[in-house]
Structure formats: structure tokens, C-alpha cells
């Protein structure tokens, strides 16, 4: 949930962090950015199109400051003028927007069994995407080489000048430790875990690609991606519920992703929904991931030979097979297959209970369902979660809006790209940096969430 800035480490001597977070909309006038230029660029990004007068309103800067900064952004090619706003009687206002093709970013989601790559433009809009087989039990250095080799292919496929690439966002399932990687990036390869322990994945990729690399947790990245796409609207407290091979969540509070002191905030999969429930892989009892997560749903479906045959479930092990089979169950549930629907609806009740817990703790206004699991089964889960959130404690103050993400299938990779765009182009100020005590690596555990 944080990122080591190896480049600034080289320049400045100390391990620093890249920072992220953004204004939640054009009217957020206490911009948390590192520079006034970053604040203006982010306000333009969040608004889509906006006039100079609108920017004064959005940032709180004076007219001469805005005029000066906008000129700089136009000179740098990051912003373009794009026609006029509707006349309101006075002088017609020139509208500004991001020059989408000015910069590009790569987002990489290193998940169990599959690596998803996206190339986005300056606004975080996807222009290319490819999925490749996952890391399995390979040497970390091999995985880094493979990722590094894929990036130029992706850029060439779109015909983009490599000089326009700002960097790479690399995300994977948590949890994190302050010291380094403590698990492998693929479930079921326990014996291989030692070689990943402490491996500085981000630093190695940065060295191999000679590009800035930012690393983070995949559920947090999905939340940032949703924020960039405007999926949280103007909410000041919002969460992305992530259903992948496990269950996770990313929090966006006042337009900034909230990570907690160790980067482990939002581990929704390990919210307890059954005090005497089954033992979770994390060591605790009754975690929602153990009670009702995708692996549990898949195991129940596979235990029903008739259902397994009818919807073509594999007998394969590993997280990739779980993801594939969960998708098949979700599609069957959508078609109205009774047993598949019952399994998903039972899972949804527990996920909904965990979601209500999160909403109560954080006073959430918006919850967006995202990730590959919700991309397939979201329409089954959403009504159940919505119903449960009617009972949220804050209901007399405000409702909790529950929505499906429009980019659920590739949310983490899209968010990974937004992560590096943010840290390179609209960085947050030092006051909003995450704790200096954090180490530089993420620590995906075997069978972890996301």
C-alpha cells in the first residue's frame, strides 16, 4: 500500500515514497498536492473539461496564478484548449482538458495464475490490455525479466513513442510487511516461497526497465482506479470491494487512498463474520474469505458432482482454477441455475455483512463492487449488498450507495496505471506521505486476498 521511490533514493540518499491521492472533484479547494501545478493538473483531470474560472473555484488559487500555471501546462503539452463553454452572457470561456496522448502509463497486476497488463493514456483511460500466464513457481528475477519484456511489446502494439511513458504501476495481492516479501505470488507453491522473501520486486523492475516503478496492493489500486474514473462521485468516504481470488477492499477518504500505518487497511476478507467459524489461512477464525470467499464457493460447487458437470467445473488446483471456476459459477447463477445461484447468494449474505461492518466503521457514502469476481457475479451480489446496507447505522444521516464498477474486470491493472500517473504527474505533498517506517516491498502471502 505504499511505494518505494528508488529513483529519489538514488538522488536523495534516503528511501522515500511516492505519494498518491487526488482531489475528489473540481470543487475540492484544499488541494493536497506537492505543487500548485500538480493541483491544477489534477483539477483538470478530475473535471474532464474546465475553464480557467472554474479552476480558480476548484483550487482556490488566484486568477494570475491559474493563468500562469495553465500556460506552463499547455507549453508542456499536458493540457489543451478544447472549444468554448456555453455562453452565460459574458465573455465565452475557453475550456481546458488533458491532452490524453501526451503521456502513457503501464499498469501491471501480478495475480495468482495470471498477469494483466494495461497501457493507459494520461487520463487513465485504457488503450491496450493483455493477460499472460502468472508467475507460478519461477525465480523472482525471471518474473521481473518477463514483465520487463512485455512492456515494450505493449507500447509498440499501440505505436506510442516510448519517451511518453511515465512509468509502471505494479500491484499484487497483500498483505504487506514492513520488511519485505514474505510469501510467493502464486498459491500452492509453498516450497518456492523462500526465494521471494525479501525480494525487492519494485526495485528490480525499476532497474530492469529504467522506468519509475510504483508498487501497491491490488485492492487499493482498484480503489484508486475507481476514483480516477469518477466512480465514487463526490463522496468523501468511499470503498472499492474487491472480489478476485479472495476478498479485499480499498478505501478512498477525502480523495486520497487510505492505507494505514503498515499498508494493510481495508483487508475486508479478514473481517470476522462467524466467531466460531472455520479456520482461515491467515490463522484466525471465521474470516469472511474463509466462510464465503470464492475458494469456498468453488469448493462447495465442486462437491456437487451434478452441478460441477453441468457447468463444466475443472478439478484443477491453484488460484487460477478457482478464479476460472468461480466465473463459471457466477455465469450459471446469472442464467438462473438454481444451485449456482443459491451458492452465490449465500456467499453474498456474508460479503454484505462484512461490507456493512466496513461502512459502519468508516461512515462510507459509496461502495463500488469491483474485481474479476464481481465483473461476472456482480449482478447477483449487488442486490444482496444493497439490501444489507439499508441497515447501516448512518442511514438516517445519509444512504450508502452501492454500485458496480464499469471496469471491474481489469480494475487493479487500471488502478496500477493510475498509481504511477498520480505519483509522477500529480504527487501529493509531503505531509500526506505514508509512514517513513515502512519498508520498500509488498508481501503477498500464499492464498491471500485480491
Amino acid at each position, binding site marked *: 500500500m505504499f511505494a518505494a521511490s528508488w529513483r529519489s533514493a538514488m538522488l536523495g540518499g534516503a528511501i522515500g515514497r511516492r505519494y498518491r491521492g487526488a482531489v475528489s472533484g473540481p470543487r475540492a479547494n484544499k488541494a493536497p498536492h506537492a505543487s500548485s501545478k500538480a493541483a491544477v493538473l489534477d483539477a483538470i483531470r478530475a473535471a474532464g473539461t474546465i475553464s480557467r474560472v472554474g479552476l480558480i473555484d476548484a483550487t482556490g488559487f488566484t486568477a494570475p496564478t491559474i493563468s500562469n500555471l495553465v500556460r506552463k501546462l499547455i507549453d508542456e503539452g499536458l493540457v489543451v484548449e478544447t472549444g468554448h463553454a456555453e455562453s452565460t452572457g459574458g465573455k465565452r470561456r475557453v475550456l481546458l482538458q488533458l491532452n490524453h496522448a501526451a503521456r502513457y502509463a503501464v499498469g501491471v497486476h501480478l495475480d495468482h*495464475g*495470471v498477469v494483466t497488463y494495461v497501457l493507459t493514456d494520461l487520463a487513465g*483511460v*485504457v*488503450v*491496450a*490490455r*493483455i*493477460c*499472460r*500466464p*502468472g508467475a*507460478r513457481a*519461477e525465480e523472482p528475477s525471471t518474473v521481473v525479466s*518477463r514483465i520487463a*519484456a*512485455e512492456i515494450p*511489446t505493449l507500447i*509498440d*502494439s*499501440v*505505436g506510442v513513442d516510448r519517451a511518453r511513458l511515465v512509468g509502471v504501476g505494479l500491484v499484487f495481492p497483500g498483505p504487506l510487511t514492513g520488511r519485505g516479501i514474505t510469501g510467493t505470488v502464486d498459491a500452492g507453491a509453498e516450497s518456492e516461497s523462500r526465494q521471494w522473501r525479501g525480494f525487492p520486486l519494485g526495485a528490480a523492475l525499476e532497474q530492469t526497465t529504467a522506468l519509475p516503478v510504483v508498487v501497491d496492493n491490488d485492492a487499493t489500486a482498484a480503489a484508486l482506479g475507481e476514483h480516477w474514473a469518477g466512480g465514487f462521485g463526490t463522496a468523501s468516504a468511499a470503498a472499492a470491494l474487491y472480489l478476485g481470488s479472495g476478498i479485499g477492499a480499498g478505501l478512498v477518504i477525502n480523495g486520497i487512498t487510505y492505507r494505514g500505518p503498515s499498508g494493510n487497511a481495508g483487508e475486508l476478507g479478514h473481517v470476522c463474520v462467524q466467531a466460531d467459524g472455520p479456520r482461515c489461512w491467515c490463522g484466525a477464525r471465521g474470516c469472511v474469505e474463509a466462510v464465503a470467499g470464492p475458494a469456498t464457493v468453488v469448493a462447495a460447487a465442486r462437491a456437487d458432482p451434478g452441478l460441477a458437470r453441468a457447468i463444466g467445473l475443472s478439478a484443477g488446483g491453484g488460484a*487460477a482454477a478457482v478464479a*476460472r471456476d468461480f*466465473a463459471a459459477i457466477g*455465469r450459471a447463477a*446469472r*442464467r438462473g441455475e438454481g444451485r449456482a445461484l443459491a451458492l452465490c447468494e449465500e456467499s453474498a449474505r456474508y460479503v454484505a455483512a462484512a461490507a456493512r461492518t466496513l461502512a459502519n466503521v468508516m461512515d462510507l457514502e459509496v461502495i463500488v463492487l469491483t474485481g474479476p469476481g464481481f*465483473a*461476472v457475479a*456482480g*449482478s447477483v451480489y*449487488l*442486490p444482496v449488498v444493497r439490501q444489507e446496507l439499508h441497515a447501516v447505522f448512518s442511514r438516517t444521516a445519509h444512504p450508502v450507495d452501492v454500485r*458496480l464498477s*464499469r*471496469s*471491474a*474486470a*481489469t480494475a487493479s491493472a487500471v488502478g496500477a496505471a493510475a498509481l504511477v500517473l498520480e505519483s509522477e504527474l500529480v504527487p501529493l505533498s509531503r505531509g500526506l506521505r505514508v509512514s517513513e517506517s515502512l519498508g520498500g516491498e509488498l508481501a503477498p502471502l500464499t492464498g491471500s486476498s485480491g
Partner: protein
Amino acid sequence: MSRDGDEMSATSAVGLVLARAPRLLGAEPFFMEFIAGIEERLAERGRSVLLHIVADHAAEVAAYRRWARQRLVDAVVLVNPTAEDSRPQVLHELGLPVVVAGDPDGDTPAVRRDDVGSVRAAVAHLAGLGHRRIARVSGPDTLRHTRTRTAALLAAAGPAGIDAVVLAGDYSAESGAALTARLLDSAAPPSAIIYDNDLMAVAGLNLAKELGLRIPRDLSLLAWDDSSLCRLASPPLTTMSLDVHRFGELVARSVLALLDGEPVRERWCPTETVVVRQTTAPPSTDLT
């Protein structure tokens, strides 16, 4: 993923270019599920889908030329075939094997949707409820399947004594709302409207509700491309349902056969069926 997949070179990709206006973000669920279906079959043979999203056909053709020059893809899946489509010819000249998802151009390998059968099923559903004035908000008229559906609708309507009218939209929510407004404002408004996709149907439903119409009592709505949007609409939309994942799997089979140098037979998606939810009902008497 197969173990073999790990050893494949980074270029073992099948290309798919999606040309669409950036604002048509709602197209994503349909295409991502289609691509997931392709990927599931290709992954068994260590291949991936390279998806590229562009604004128009000129950029799409430029991408094909780039891919051929740099040998970035082994084959191409062509989506949304148009009436006078130059793309299959371009791909042929570039030596890129192609499978068309939809109505093919000449003898290009294709996986087809049964648009005629599906339109007949839609009309039969509405006619069975007693509708005699049916409108359709279609996709762009340049698309082959739009034209096929229009011809099928007119052919099915006449003999059944149904008065049918078609307005061409662009799949966006904006066009769905605007064309629904125009239809409802006409001298003889329809008692049922068919939409060619989910986004336009949901927009049409919302507009009709804003106008105070009770759905389905005052107006029946039938959407195409069943999706979460349709299932979660209020009331849930009756739709024509295609197994999009299976569509993708069929396309992958044709692609793999093509790459293996085997003869590629024409494949057909199963005919779409009406999934009855809560937006179709007999017309109210004062509107018929």
C-alpha cells in the same frame, strides 16, 4: 494456464481492436466477457488476446499494419463488421489470419449470431402480448448486424399485422434517451420499444419513468445484450440474451483451427432467447 503457456514467447497473441467513441464506456462489460471467453480457450494453448481500443476505423487499420510489420500478433479477431467493410481485405493483404465475430465478408472465417432468428423471437414475444405498434432503437446503420436485424424486423412485422418503425442510435445512453423521447412524442407512439443494446434500453427506461409512464403497463421495453445493467434496472429489463462468454469461446476455436492450418467451418452462436423480466406486458387499451 497450461504449463506450456509459460514457455510461449511474448508475441503469441491474437489481436482484437475495438473502435469506439471513448464515451461508450458501457460497452466494456459485454466486450470483457467476450474476451474472457476467447482467453479461456486460447490460454489452454498458451495464447493471449491483445486488446487495443481506438477511436475509429482509420486507427484500427493503422494498428493492423503496425502489428503485421512488427509481427506482434498471429491472428486477428474482427468485431462489428460493417456494410462495406474494407478491413478483411486489408488484413488479407497484410497476411494476417482473421476470424470475424459476426456476419462475414465473402468466405472469411466467421462466428455468426443468428440475428434473424433472434429478432423473430423478440417480435413473437411482443406480438404474443398483443402489441401492434413496435418501435426499435437500433445501433448504427453502418453495422451489418444492425441492417440484418432491421430487415428481419420488417419482414416479421408485416405478416403479423404489426406497424414497425426503426430509429438508428449509436449505442450511447444519450441516443437511447433522445430517440425514446422522439418516439413517445410522435403522433402514434409505439406500445413497445426494442433496443439494440443495454445502455440505450436503460436510458430509455429512465426517460419513460421520468415522463410518468408506468412500466410495463403504459409501455413495454425489450433490451438487447443482457448485462448487469439490465438485471439491476428498476424494474429489471426483459432482454434478448446471448451467452457472450460462449460466443468468445467459439471465436477462439475458430482462431485456433485457423492457426493450426485446419479448415475453419462457419460457427453459429445459439439463437438468442427472450429472458422475461418486468418490462414487457400486454399494452394498455388506451394506447392501442
